[in-house]
């Protein structure tokens, strides 16, 4: 049986949700999401430090989606948008959770898993060195940040990224990435 994307989306929407979206990931959508989440954090009177961290991590997560999302084949377009992605921002146990989900081709699963595991295993200084190395030595690709996104997320959150790859059909896996920002570091509310 293939992975149930809608069921998964419903499950993510449990808890204190600031924003939930599934559908076409476009530049306009990213602008709208950022605006909504910024306003919601204002309502929560979140400290500027946490607000900035969440915003930064959200930008990177969304733009990772935007740049790497697969154009789905026609037979899947009945159920999903062409550039289908999922985004849910919620508050869970003193943390902001940013969840993204998208289809990826099977050949990318191992590459992505290896990359996330590597970034997760690195400490603060190692991440800083890696960030600076990529910044200074790798050309910016047409697609975006040239691999800086995940390193930046890890540096800013200080938390491990959690992920799953669920088989959808012969051609696609559904990739889910959860990123956490601690609320504790900004307890000095302003």
């Amino acid at each position, binding site marked *: 049986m293939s992975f149930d994307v809608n069921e998964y989306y419903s499950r993510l929407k449990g808890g204190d949700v600031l924003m939930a979206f599934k559908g076409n990931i476009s*530049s306009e959508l*990213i*602008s709208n999401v*950022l*605006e909504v989440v910024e306003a919601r954090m204002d309502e929560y009177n979140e400290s*500027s*430090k946490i607000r*900035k*961290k969440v*915003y*930064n991590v959200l*930008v*990177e997560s969304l*733009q990772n989606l*935007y*740049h790497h999302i697969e154009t789905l084949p026609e037979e899947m377009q009945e159920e999903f948008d062409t550039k289908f992605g999922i985004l849910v921002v919620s508050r869970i146990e003193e943390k902001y959770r940013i969840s993204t989900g998208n289809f990826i081709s099977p050949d990318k699963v191992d590459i992505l898993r290896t990359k996330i595991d590597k970034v997760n295993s690195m400490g603060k200084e190692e991440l*800083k060195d890696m*960030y*600076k190395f990529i*910044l*200074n030595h790798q050309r*910016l690709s*047409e697609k*975006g*940040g*040239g691999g*800086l*996104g995940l390193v*930046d997320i890890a540096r*800013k959150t200080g938390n491990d990224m959690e992920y799953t790859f669920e088989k959808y059909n012969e051609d696609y896996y559904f990739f889910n990435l959860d990123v956490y920002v601690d609320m504790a570091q900004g307890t000095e509310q302003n």
Partner: protein
Amino acid sequence: MEPLSIEGTAKTPTVKFNGHEGVIEIKGRSIPENSIEFYKPLVEWLEEYSKTPLDLTQVNVQLEYFNTSSSKCILDVFKKLEAIHKGSNEVIINWYYEEDDEDMLEAGEDYESIIRVPFKMIEIVE
């Protein structure tokens, strides 16, 4: 040469490059999906300016947010400034960051360690 002036948007910064005063400013948010496109005219302007720069070029960078895609383009801008500095003209980069924004301070220090131009870290206190 003609000054470069770009109005800021929700995703791109306000840009004011003035060759007569030797003052270069980038302010606001830099989070476009396609940063190469946005930064291209900035790098080109600096390329031209670097042919006859003033004795002192002052650079003010005051960003609230920038994405990783912009970070490489900002490095390209700084590399142009580094070339001017190497040509024995004075260049100073003032890197502004908001109080408590350690991530932005750290980002400035990352650039400072890569680019051979004097940096000044300036905290904005509300």
